[in-house]
């Protein structure tokens, strides 16, 4: 880890000193050593604060949408492979210019589930990391200006690992049972929109829920309105969500939102062969079409 941190800090320092960027967003140790927090560095002298370990769960790309961050112009950001896909998507969707961002990619071996970390877990294993890490295809970020390699070995995956196994279970259920499942989940929703706030790709300055002519979503907290919000969120993120899992982590009532996001991602891949966040020059799946697209459900 020390080697990694040295490289991270040096890179950050150089970038700030050379004025190539005005701000670096990274991770720093919090008061609890097993919880990492985000840190915003403008002074090269503070670069030593930056650090990385298996507790760096947050997707820092979420800050790139904030006006108070945007005003810095050229920004450097520390990203894991999964989070970097968010950066790609932001570039793809014109929310960020490639010229204005320096991507400091870190090779990530997996992030430890925060609830376990809070109980003192500190080792990266199949049983301690998030589901997204088990299915991770981007331990090394796809796009970066600087790469900080991990000095940890990759953890072993043994047996038949099925991340998000619940999806298959849901798929196998009857419609009524799925309805029951989600009704229970969405009943809990308090429409706090934390899922939206935590999402690096929910960057609209005026969200559709805030539009009242027409009222797309019931504002009060009742079942159909809750479901409607969750529906719209899922629909707006399908083909875009890069699976960082921040929405689910942010949800105060523990709705398993990644089961929705991941399902849509699989669906889009199955139907259109598209995976989000891989290529800044790719046409987004719902920004284009193919004359031979899936047509079977249409009479």
């Amino acid at each position, binding site marked *: 880890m020390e080697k990694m941190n040295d490289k991270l800090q040096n890179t950050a320092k150089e970038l700030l000193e050379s004025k190539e960027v005005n701000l670096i967003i990274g991770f720093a140790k919090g008061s609890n050593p097993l919880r990492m927090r985000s840190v915003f560095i403008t002074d090269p002298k503070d670069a030593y604060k930056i650090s990385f370990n298996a507790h760096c769960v947050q997707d820092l790309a979420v800050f790139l949408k904030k006006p108070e961050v945007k005003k810095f112009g050229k920004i450097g950001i520390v990203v894991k492979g999964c989070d970097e896909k968010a950066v790609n998507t932001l570039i793809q969707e014109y929310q960020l210019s490639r010229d204005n961002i320096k991507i400091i990619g870190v090779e990530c071996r997996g992030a430890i589930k925060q609830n376990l970390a809070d109980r003192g877990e500190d080792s990266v294993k199949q049983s301690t990391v998030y589901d997204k890490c088990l299915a991770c295809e981007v331990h090394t970020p796809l796009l970066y200006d600087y790469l900080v390699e991990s000095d940890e070995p990759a953890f072993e995956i043994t047996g038949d690992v099925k991340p998000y196994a619940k999806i298959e279970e849901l798929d196998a259920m009857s419609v009524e049972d799925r309805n029951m499942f989600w*009704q229970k989940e969405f009943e809990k929703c308090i429409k706090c929109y934390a899922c939206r706030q935590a999402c690096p790709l929910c960057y609209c300055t005026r969200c559709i829920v805030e539009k009242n002519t027409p009222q797309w979503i019931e504002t009060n907290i009742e079942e159909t309105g809750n479901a409607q919000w969750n529906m719209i969120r899922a629909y707006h993120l399908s083909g875009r969500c890069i699976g960082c899992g921040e929405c689910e982590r942010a949800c105060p009532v523990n709705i398993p939102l990644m089961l929705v996001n991941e*399902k849509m991602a699989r*669906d889009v891949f199955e139907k259109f062969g598209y995976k989000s966040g891989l290529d800044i020059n790719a046409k987004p799946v719902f920004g284009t079409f193919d*004359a031979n697209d899936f047509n079977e459900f249409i009479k």
Partner: protein
Amino acid sequence: MENNRVEEDDKNAQNDKGNLSGSGSAKEKEPRIIAFVCNWCTYNGADLAGTSRMKYAENVRVIKLPCTGRIDPLFVVEAFKKGAKGVLVSGCHPGDCHYTSGNYHSRRKYTAFRDLLSYFGVDTNRVEFSWISASEGNKWVSVINDFTNKIKSLPDSSDIFSKQ
């Protein structure tokens, strides 16, 4: 602020609801079906069914839009929320879109949207999609009749968008 005038009318409309429901008198044994159709192909196909005096089930209410590309999947959710038992989306056949590609874009979105509906426990038998050209009056009739029969055969829905 943009629409005071209308909001006011709406309130009145709600108050008067009981009085003016022409359809209300049938006490809604008949399921309501909303059809979102494009102006160029399906709407004309339905017109053709009319001029040919073909007969079909009365349950459908057509909402005309310029193109399937304009038919937002979220309209479907809204229709369910407002009590529709079935929703039909229909437009020009692939390759025939008046606006070149509206139906292609729409098809992609509905492919994903339909799966999402089903995943959330909505019976996808309640949403129907069809390509009906301006010359397919007979297809319009059979799609409407088949869909109406299908909807009638389904149990009362209790999915997350239909609960009142």
